[in-house]
């Protein structure tokens, strides 16, 4: 089952009087349960592609189809609702809300995806934090957590709403190798156990090695698409 399809995606940016092409004619499909990595050097278009799949940006031409729905023409509000309900994000810099506890940082994802039952939110949040090994850190603020722990909270936040797709932009880039490996293990475990679909962008060879599918990008085009 296809979770996401990209058809003839072109993305250009204005740069002064010039127009820079970040992505040029991308076609690809991501199926449910995949553990896919976008690999490539800086400026190859990895982050741009993730932003388009995550509906944070819109293509100059082409279509992004998410769970069978063409997202072209959706309003800002509809895109927000789709992101809230179908996409989880994990960022390189963790991007936790500093004024919220670990528990609240995860719970907010459910609040934004319109889970109104408070008890249901509490139960799901607790389960998500326990799944990433943070059962004893519910009340900690982000500044009271290590980088690895913060990224685990971010993973729990991305997965708590059981999204169709989890997008992770260089999730291990700000972690040491040990923490990076642990984070990757957690995501692989969640991918295997819950069937969550992951898409990464990374420079990290360790992440590339663990991927089931590696899509290599160079100058805005796909140069290789390998499944292991």
């Amino acid at each position: 089952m296809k979770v996401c399809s990209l058809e003839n995606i072109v993305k250009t940016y204005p740069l002064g009087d010039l127009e820079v092409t970040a992505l040029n004619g991308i076609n690809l499909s991501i199926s449910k349960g995949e553990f896919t990595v976008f690999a490539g050097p800086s400026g190859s278009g990895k982050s741009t592609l993730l932003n388009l799949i995550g509906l944070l940006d819109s293509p100059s031409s082409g279509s992004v189809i998410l769970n069978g729905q063409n997202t072209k023409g959706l309003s800002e509000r509809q895109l927000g609702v789709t992101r809230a309900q179908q996409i989880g994000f994990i960022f390189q810099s963790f991007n936790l809300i500093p004024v919220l506890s670990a528990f609240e940082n995860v719970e907010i994802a459910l609040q934004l995806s319109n889970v109104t039952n408070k008890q249901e939110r509490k139960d799901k949040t607790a389960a998500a934090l326990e799944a990433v090994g943070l059962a004893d850190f519910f009340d900690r603020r982000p500044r009271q957590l290590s980088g690895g722990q913060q990224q685990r909270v971010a993973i729990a936040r991305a997965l708590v709403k059981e999204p169709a797709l989890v997008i992770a932009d260089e999730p291990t880039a700000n972690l040491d190798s040990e923490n990076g490996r642990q984070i990757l293990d957690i995501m692989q475990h969640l991918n295997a156990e819950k069937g969550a679909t992951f898409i990464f962008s990374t420079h990290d060879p360790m992440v590339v090695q663990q991927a089931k599918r590696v899509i290599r990008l160079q100058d805005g085009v796909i140069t290789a698409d390998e499944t292991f």
Partner: protein
Amino acid sequence: MKWSLLFSLAFRNIFRNKKRNFISSVAIIAGVFALIFGEGLVDGIDESVIRGQETVLGGHVLLRPTDYPTDGRNYPLKKTIIPDEELLNFLRSDEVAAWTTRLYFRTRLIKGSDSLRIKTIGYDRKKEASVFTQKDWQIQGQWPEKSQQIAIGHSFASLMELNIGDQVILEARSRPGAINALDYTITGIVNAHNGGVDAFTAWMPLTEVDTFIQTEGARSHIALRLANGRAMAEEVAQSLQHNDWTAATAISEVADLMEINKFRRKAFSFISLILMAIAATGIANTIIMAAYERVAEIGTLRAMGMQQREILFLFIIEGAFLGIFAGLVGSILSSLLNYYLSIYGIDISQQAEAIGEMAIPTSMYTQFSVAQILYAMSFGVLVSLLASIWPATHAVQINPADAVRGD
């Protein structure tokens, strides 16, 4: 709209940069303080002046002969008249709780080689206290009880170095026009806490006045205390338009002083507005700095599905919280000061005495008004809220794709 989430986030966000937010709030605190304290002070001055008129000089309604001067400086005996039966009948009506007559006339007080023109108030010993409660009055010695005795105002006594038991000569033109002079003994020194009677004033019972200047019962003033107090004064004054007597309320008697006070009120409002304008700039600056500092956070919230207008409201609510905080602090500080001064007052005896015979109490009491506090606080919150709108629209325009990378 997820209001509870927005309020919760906004509330926590204002504690993120306490020093900066506090500094931004100072102008609002000052503006609310100036608005509440200024209004309380000006209202207090108005009330003190009216009360000074009511409790010392004229009661709720003051009657004078129709062509008698109202400037408070001239007291022509020729204009005084004897209250007729028609007027006395009205004064016995239910609306009038008490009334008393006075006769003001000019005298020269001579002590040795010193002399000074003063105002002498002839008063009805039996009725005076029923109109003027005199509860705050202080008398050293006693009120005159026998012939050729007087009491004098304390600041005047101080100026002329007069003491109880001193002999003075009073010289005055009688109502028929002759000049009379008699020896008087000072039996009391009165402090009514009002420049209108404490300065350059002597007190003499009307029976003594009638003898001294041959008034034949003519009076210059009739002061009324009303059963329903100040609220009915205007109505009673209107109904009292007698051919020979003209009625004026205490408020109309001090209208000139209150008119001057309007400028004070405007000045305080102007100062508050300037402070609020400064505050609005500070709040707008704080919110826009917060928006730029939290670019990644805004992007994350947008990525998680928070809508643009929810981001907008998040920052506006933060501004409103700053306004509420500042409004509360400003209100509490000014209310405490106003409350304190509404009980203990401000001593302005030196200024009141310097002004002379105007009906200015020697202590001013501020007015403590909950409505005024709520108004000033709401104004502070509104300014803060409005100042947040423009920077909040900037926060909304942040591109989430750039924002999540913290660009």
